[in-house]
C-alpha cells in the first residue's frame, strides 16, 4: 500500500514488536509519532509525547534495560538535547532492542540548521543504519532491533527529509507480538556509571564496536552492483540519484556501485575490495564528508593509488540537499563522460520578481495579538526580543518584527539574561507553552536565582501547534477526549519557581493586555506574562469556536492600520478598498480594536462556504 516514509517507519516498528516509543515532536519526524500515538490508544503499545528528547531517550533506555523493545524518535537537533543521555547509554548498552530515529533536515526545510547526525554514531560509538527509500526504511527498523539486541547497544536509524516525506508503495509484513512488560534485573556494575564502572564499560563499548564492524561487513544492507574500473560509494537518498545517473549516463557496465545502508561502523573490507578494483572512486553523500574521509583513511592505510573525491568545488557541496541533476552532473564530470544531452530547461531568469509568499501567522492567531500588545507596551524604549521555536517564530517578519535572536529550543530565556546583563537595553523574551516545558524552565530558574532583569512572555495556546497539534504537559487532555493524563499549570509552576510578578493576559483583550505588559516591564528582576488563548486551528478542529467573520464597513477612511500593523492574511486589497475574506476571518476582533474609525464590524450576513 501507499505509505509516507514516516508511516513506513512506524509500521516497521510495529512489525518489529516495539512496545514503548517516546518522542518530542519535530519536523521531519512528526508523523512517525502521530501514527504510533494513534495506534497506542488501541493496543498495549506504550507511546508518549515526552517533555523533551532527552527524557524521551531516557524513557526508551530504561525500557530497553528491562528487556523491552523501545524506540526514541526525534528530529536531528533533538538528538543534541538527548546527547547527554546518548553518550553514556552507549557505555551501559541495552537488553531489549533500542532504536533511535534521528530525522535530519538537509536544506533546512523546517529547521534552524542542517547538522549531519551521522557523526553522532561515530562520537558515541554506536551502529547506524541509513535507508535510501521508503520501502527500505520500513525493512530497516526490524533489522535495527536485531542488531541492537545482538550487540546489546542502541542503534541509530538516520533518515533525511526526502525519506521521511516521500511516498512509495510498501509491502506490509506480519506484526510481531509485543513483549510489553519485563522486570528490571539489577546489575549496578553495568548500569551505575561511576568512574570505576565506566572505565570498564568504555572497553566493553569498543569490543561491541568491533563486533558491529563484523556485522556491517556481512550485512545485506550494504550492497554492491555493477562492474568496471570506476567506483561510486554512496548512502541514503543520494543512492537513488546515483542509480538514476548511472542509468541515464549509460554507465552500468563501467561503474561499481557500493550502496552503504549500515554506515557506522563502515564495512571496511567491502570498501577496500572496491577501492582495489577501481582507478577512480566518487563518494556521493549529502552533508559532511562522513564517508569520504573514512574511505580516504582506509585507502591511505592500505597505500592504494586510487583517486577518491566527493566534496569538491567542481563536484559536490556540503550545503543543502542534492537532486538528480546535480548528482548526474557530478558523476559525469568526475568520470569524464559526456553529460546526457539535457532537455532544454526553461529559462526563468526574465520572470519578474513575484511577491514573496512566506509562511505567516494564521488569521485569528493569538500570537499576533500578543506581539501587537507587547509592541505597543514597549514602544519608545529600545527593546531586544529574543524569541524561540514554534509558530510564533514567524512573528519576526514585518510588520510585527518581534524576534531578534534565536538559536535553539529554550534559547529565548537563557539568552534574555545575557542580553539584560550587558546590553543596557530592555529585554522581552517570547516562548511557547510546549517549548517552555521542553527547555525554558531551567533558564527561568537561573534568571530568578541570578536576578536577571527581563520580561518573559509565555505564549500559551494550549498545544504544540507548529508540528501538528501534539499535546504538552500544560494541555487539558480531557478536553481532547483523551483520559489518563496529568496536567501542569504554567502559572503555578512559574510562581513556584520564585517569579514574583506573574500576570495572565487574554491577548484579544487588547487594552488590558497592553496595560499588563507595561506593568510587567517596570518590574526589577524577572517578570512573566502568560498570554493565554487557544490556537485558532485547534479550536476549529475541536469545534470549540464558530467563526464570526468581520467586515470593513463604509466608515473606513483607508488608514490601513489594520493591514500595516497586523498583516493578518484575511485582509486583501480590492481596488483601493481594504476587504476581509469572510472565509479566513475567525472574528478574533484584534483589527476592530485598533481601527481608528471603528470601521471593522461583525459581518451579520450569513457566510456561505
Amino acid at each position, binding site marked *: *500500500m*501507499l505509505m509516507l516514509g514516516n508511516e513506513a517507519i512506524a509500521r516497521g516498528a510495529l512489525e518489529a514488536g516495539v512496545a514503548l516509543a517516546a518522542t518530542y515532536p519535530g*519536523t*521531519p519526524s512528526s508523523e512517525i509519532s502521530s501514527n504510533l500515538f494513534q495506534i497506542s490508544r488501541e493496543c498495549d503499545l506504550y507511546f508518549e509525547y515526552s517533555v523533551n528528547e532527552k527524557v524521551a531517550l531516557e524513557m526508551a533506555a530504561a525500557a530497553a534495560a528491562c528487556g523491552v523493545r523501545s524506540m526514541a524518535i526525534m528530529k536531528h537537533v533533538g538528538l543534541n538535547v538527548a546527547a547527554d543521555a546518548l553518550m553514556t547509554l552507549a557505555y551501559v548498552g541495552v537488553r531489549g532492542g533500542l532504536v533511535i530515529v534521528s530525522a535530519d533536515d538537509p536544506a533546512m*526545510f*523546517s529547521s534552524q540548521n542542517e547538522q549531519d547526525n551521522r557523526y553522532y554514531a561515530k562520537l558515541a560509538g554506536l551502529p547506524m543504519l541509513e535507508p535510501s*527509500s521508503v520501502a527500505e526504511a520500513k525493512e530497516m527498523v526490524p533489522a535495527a532491533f536485531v542488531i541492537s539486541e545482538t550487540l546489546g547497544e542502541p542503534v541509530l536509524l538516520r533518515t533525511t*527529509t*526526502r525519506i521521511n*516525506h*516521500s*511516498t*512509495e*508503495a510498501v509491502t506490509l509484513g506480519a506484526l510481531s507480538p509485543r513483549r510489553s512488560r519485563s522486570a528490571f534485573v539489577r546489575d549496578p556494575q553495568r548500569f551505575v556509571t561511576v568512574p570505576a564502572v565506566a572505565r570498564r564499560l568504555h572497553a566493553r563499548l569498543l569490543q561491541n564496536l568491533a563486533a558491529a564492524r563484523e556485522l556491517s561487513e556481512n550485512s545485506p544492507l550494504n550492497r554492491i552492483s555493477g562492474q568496471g574500473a570506476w567506483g561510486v560509494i554512496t548512502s541514503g*537518498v543520494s543512492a*537513488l*540519484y546515483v*542509480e*538514476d545517473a548511472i*542509468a541515464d549516463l549509460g554507465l552500468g557496465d563501467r561503474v561499481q556501485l557500493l550502496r552503504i545502508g549500515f554506515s557506522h561502523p563502515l564495512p571496511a573490507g567491502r570498501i577496500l575490495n572496491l577501492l582495489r578494483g577501481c582507478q577512480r572512486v566518487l563518494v556521493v553523500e549529502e552533508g559532511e564528508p562522513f564517508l569520504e574521509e573514512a574511505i580516504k583513511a582506509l585507502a591511505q592505510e592500505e597505500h592504494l593509488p586510487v583517486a577518491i573525491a566527493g566534496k569538491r568545488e567542481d563536484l559536490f557541496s556540503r550545503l543543502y540537499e542534492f*537532486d*538528480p*541533476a*546535480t548528482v548526474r552532473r557530478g558523476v559525469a564530470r568526475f568520470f569524464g563522460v559526456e553529460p546526457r544531452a*539535457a*532537455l*532544454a*530547461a*526553461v*529559462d*526563468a531568469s526574465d*520572470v*519578474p*520578481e*513575484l*511577491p*514573496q*509568499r*512566506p*509562511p*505567516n*501567522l*494564521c488569521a485569528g492567531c493569538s500570537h499576533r495579538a500578543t506581539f501587537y500588545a507587547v509592541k505597543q507596551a514597549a514602544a519608545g524604549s529600545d527593546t531586544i526580543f529574543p524569541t524561540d521555536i514554534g*509558530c510564533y517564530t*514567524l512573528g519576526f517578519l*514585518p*510588520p510585527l518584527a518581534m524576534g531578534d535572536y534565536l538559536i535553539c529550543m529554550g534559547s529565548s530565556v537563557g539568552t534574555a539574561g545575557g542580553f539584560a546583563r550587558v546590553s543596557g537595553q530592555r529585554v522581552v523574551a517570547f516562548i511557547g507553552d510546549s517549548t517552555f516545558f521542553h527547555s525554558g524552565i531551567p533558564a527561568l530558574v537561573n534568571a530568578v536565582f541570578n536576578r536577571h532583569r527581563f520580561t518573559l512572555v509565555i505564549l500559551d495556546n494550549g498545544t504544540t501547534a*507548529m508540528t501538528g497539534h501534539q499535546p504538552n504537559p500544560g494541555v487539558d487532555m480531557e478536553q481532547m477526549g483523551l483520559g489518563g493524563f496529568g496536567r501542569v499549570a504554567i502559572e503555578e509552576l512559574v510562581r513556584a519557581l520564585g517569579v514574583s510578578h506573574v500576570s495572565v493576559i487574554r491577548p484579544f483583550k487588547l487594552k488590558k493586555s497592553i496595560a499588563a505588559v507595561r506593568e510587567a516591564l517596570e518590574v526589577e528582576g524577572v517578570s512573566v506574562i502568560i498570554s493565554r488563548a487557544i490556537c485558532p*486551528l485547534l479550536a476549529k478542529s475541536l469545534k470549540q469556536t464558530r467563526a464570526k467573520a468581520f467586515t470593513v464597513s463604509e466608515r473606513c477612511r483607508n488608514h490601513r492600520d489594520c*493591514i*500595516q500593523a497586523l*498583516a*493578518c*492574511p484575511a*485582509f*486583501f*486589497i480590492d481596488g483601493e478598498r481594504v476587504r476581509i475574506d469572510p*472565509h479566513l476571518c475567525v472574528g478574533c476582533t484584534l483589527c476592530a480594536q485598533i481601527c481608528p474609525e471603528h470601521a471593522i464590524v461583525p459581518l451579520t450576513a450569513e457566510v456561505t*462556504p
Partner: protein
Amino acid sequence: MKTSRLVIVAVGGQGNLLASRVLGEAALAAGIAFRMSEIHGMAQRGGVVESAVIFGGARSPIVSDGEADLLLGFEPGETLRAIGRCHAGATVVTSIHPLPPFTVAIGRGRYPAIDDILARLRAKVSRVIAIDGQALALQAGHPMTLNMVMLGALAHTASLPMDADMVRGAIRAKTRAALVDTNLAAFNLGFNAAAGA
C-alpha cells in the same frame, strides 16, 4: 516505460497533497511504478506546498530544475514562480484564480496581471492549459474541490501514464465517502474545461 515527471505547486490549504496521493493511488492500482515526495513544513501557515510525482522507472523521488514534463499549479502566481522546474517541451496546467500573498496587501511586492502570467507561461513551454479552477470548484459544490478540478484538467492533457477513469477510480476509493460525488463532479468539470481551454 518512459519516465514522466510531474511537479504540483499550491498554496497551503489548497489540497495539493491529496491530489498527489490520488495520483499515486491510481498508479499503484494500475501497476505503474512511481515515486513521490512533498515539502509541507509550514503548509498550514500559508506557505507554498510542493509535491512531485515521478512515473516510470526512475528511482529519485524529486525533480530537478528544468526537468519537469508536467507542472500543475493551483495558483497562477505560484505556477509562474515554479516555471523554472520545467523543460521547454513541458505541459503546464494552471488555475487562473489568484490568491495574492499578504505581502501584496502590506505593499511588499506587486501581484502581476493574470494575462501577463499566462503570456509568460505560454512563451516558456510548449503547452499551457489555463482554467478557472476556483469557479469550477464552487460550481462542483465546494471550494475545497479545487484539487480535483485541477486533476481533471491534468488528466485531460493525456500526459499522465494512466487514463482519466483510473484517476476517477482512485478518487472513488481514496477520498472521503461523503465527498466522492462532489469530488468526481469537480474532476469532470476540470476535465471538460481543459477540453475547451
